[in-house]
C-alpha cells in the first residue's frame, strides 16, 4: 500500500472516521489498542457488509456523496483503512475485498494521469465502478422491497377447512408384466449376465420352493427332512424340493442336522440348529 493511502486526510470533512463500533452510544472509530476484541465480534462486523460493493456504498452514503462523483482517492483511503483493520485483526478476508482494493488503486492511478485532449471520448476511469455500484445498489434496494412485501407466514395466512368426510382410497400404481420383464432385462444387461450363450430353462420353481421351505421353517423351526417332500407332487415336485434344499444349503440359508448315522435328518434355519440337548428333546417328543 502506498503511503498516500495512509496519509492524512485532505480535509476535515473526510477526516471523520467510520465508527468502528458504537459503545454506549459513543462512536468508536478505532479499536482501542489495549482492548482485546474477540474475533467473533469482528466477524459480526464484517458480516454486516454483503461484500466490497456494499462496503463502498456504505462509505459513500455515510458522507452523502453523489455516487456519480466519487472522490476516488478519499474513498480508496477509507476502504483501505477498513481492509487494514481487518488484516490487523487477522480476520479471514474474502478475496473479493482485495480484488476491489486493487481496482480502486488502479482507478486512482488512472485518474492521476493527465488525460488526452480527446477526453470526451475517453471514459471516466470511475465509470465501471460507478456502474457496478449503481447496479448493486438497485438490487440491494430490490431485496429490501421484496422483504417488505406481505408474505405468507408473516403477514398472510392462507386458510383451510377440514375436507369433508369422503372415501379416499389411494390409488396404487399399475404394473404391466412387460414393464417388470423389461426392467429385469435391463438389470441383467447392466450386470452382464447375458454372457452365457446356452442358457437353459431356469427352473424358477426351485426358487419358488426355496421361499416356501423357508416359510415353513419360520413356522416350525425344525422340520424333518422327509416332511418337506410331498409325494403327491410327483417326481418333478420332489426333485424341485430337493434342488431347493441343496441350493439353500449352499447359500447358508438352512442347516441339515443328523444326530447319528441313520437317525432322522432335520432341517432348520441356518444358525438355529438345535444343540444336542434340544435335539434329544425333539427326538423324544417326535417319536
Amino acid at each position: 500500500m502506498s503511503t498516500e493511502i495512509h496519509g492524512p486526510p485532505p480535509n476535515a470533512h473526510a477526516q471523520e472516521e467510520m465508527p468502528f463500533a458504537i459503545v454506549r452510544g459513543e462512536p468508536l472509530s478505532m479499536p482501542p489498542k489495549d482492548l482485546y476484541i474477540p474475533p467473533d465480534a469482528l466477524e459480526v462486523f464484517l458480516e454486516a457488509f454483503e461484500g466490497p460493493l456494499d462496503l463502498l456504498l456504505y462509505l459513500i452514503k455515510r458522507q452523502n456523496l453523489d455516487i456519480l462523483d466519487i472522490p476516488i482517492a478519499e474513498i480508496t483511503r477509507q476502504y483501505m483503512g477498513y481492509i487494514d483493520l481487518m488484516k490487523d485483526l487477522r480476520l479471514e478476508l474474502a478475496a473479493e475485498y482485495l480484488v476491489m482494493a486493487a481496482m480502486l488503486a488502479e482507478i486512482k492511478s488512472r485518474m492521476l494521469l493527465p488525460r488526452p485532449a480527446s477526453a470526451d471520448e475517453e471514459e471516466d476511469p470511475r465509470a465501471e465502478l460507478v456502474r457496478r455500484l449503481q447496479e448493486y445498489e438497485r438490487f440491494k434496494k430490490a431485496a429490501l422491497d421484496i422483504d417488505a412485501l406481505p408474505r405468507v407466514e408473516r403477514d398472510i395466512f392462507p386458510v383451510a377447512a377440514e375436507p369433508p368426510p369422503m372415501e379416499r382410497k389411494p390409488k396404487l400404481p399399475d404394473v404391466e408384466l412387460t414393464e417388470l420383464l423389461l426392467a429385469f432385462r435391463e438389470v441383467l444387461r447392466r450386470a452382464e449376465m447375458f454372457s452365457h450363450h446356452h442358457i437353459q430353462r431356469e427352473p424358477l420353481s426351485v426358487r419358488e420352493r426355496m421361499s416356501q421351505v423357508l416359510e415353513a421353517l419360520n413356522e416350525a423351526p425344525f422340520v424333518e427332512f422327509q416332511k418337506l417332500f410331498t409325494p403327491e407332487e410327483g417326481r418333478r415336485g420332489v426333485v424341485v424340493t430337493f434342488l431347493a434344499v441343496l441350493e439353500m444349503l449352499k447359500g447358508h440359508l438352512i442347516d441339515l442336522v443328523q444326530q447319528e448315522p441313520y437317525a432322522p435328518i432335520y432341517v432348520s434355519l441356518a444358525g438355529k440348529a438345535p444343540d444336542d440337548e434340544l435335539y434329544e428333546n425333539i427326538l423324544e417328543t417326535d417319536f
Partner: protein
Amino acid sequence: MDPDLLKRIIEGALLAANRPLSIDQLERLFDGDQHPERAAIRAALKALGEDCESRGYELKEVASGYRFQVRETVAPWVSRLWEEKPPRYTRALLETLALIAYRQPITRAEIEEIRGVAVSTHIVRTLSEREWIRVVGHRDVPGRPALFGTTRQFLDYFNLQSLDDLPTLAELRDLDKMHPELDFNGPDEGDSSAPEAAEEDSLPAAETDEAGEGEASDTVVELPRTPDGRTLQ
C-alpha cells in the same frame, strides 16, 4: 370488543389454524385488556355456525375444539381434488421386484450387488406394503440379513400360476420379438408353455440326473457366490 370484530377474528383463526381450536386457545389470541368474556366467544361461535348454514362448510365441535369442515353435500366434487392419476413405480422399484422374483430368496445386499446401487428402504417398504414381497428367512452370515421372496399376491396380480410362468432368461433376451401381449401361456411360446402340464409328469431323464447330482448350476444360470453368501457381478 365489538362482537363483529370478535366474530371475524375467531373465524379467521379457526380457518387459519389447520387444526381444531378450543375456547381456551381462542381466548389466548387476545391481550389482557381486550380479553372477551368466554360467553362472548361462545356467542360468536354460535353466530358463526349460523352464518355458514347456506355455505360450503360448517362449524363442528370435535374433541379438541372447534373447526370448520367442508360440507358432506359437496364431497363428491371436492373429493376429486385428491383423485390423482395413479402414480407410477420407479425403474429402481421394478428392477428390485424383478430381481426378487427371479433370484429369490435374495438379500438386499445381493440386489444391490447386481444392480450396482443401493436399494432404498422406501422401495422395500412399498413392495412389502403392496404384499408383493415378504421376508422368507435370514441368511446365516454376519448381520443375518433378511431374505426376500415374492408372495401369492404377486403371482395373482401378474396373473401367474407359478414363477415358472415367468419367461426364462433366454426368452428375456428375445423379449422384443415376442408377442406384445406376452401371452406366456400360449402353446406357441416354446419353453414357457407347459410347466403346469409337465409338473405332474415325470421329467426327461437327463434333467432328473442332473438334479440328482445336485448340480443345479448347470441348468440354472447361477451367479457365482462369494464365501459370505453374497453374489458377485
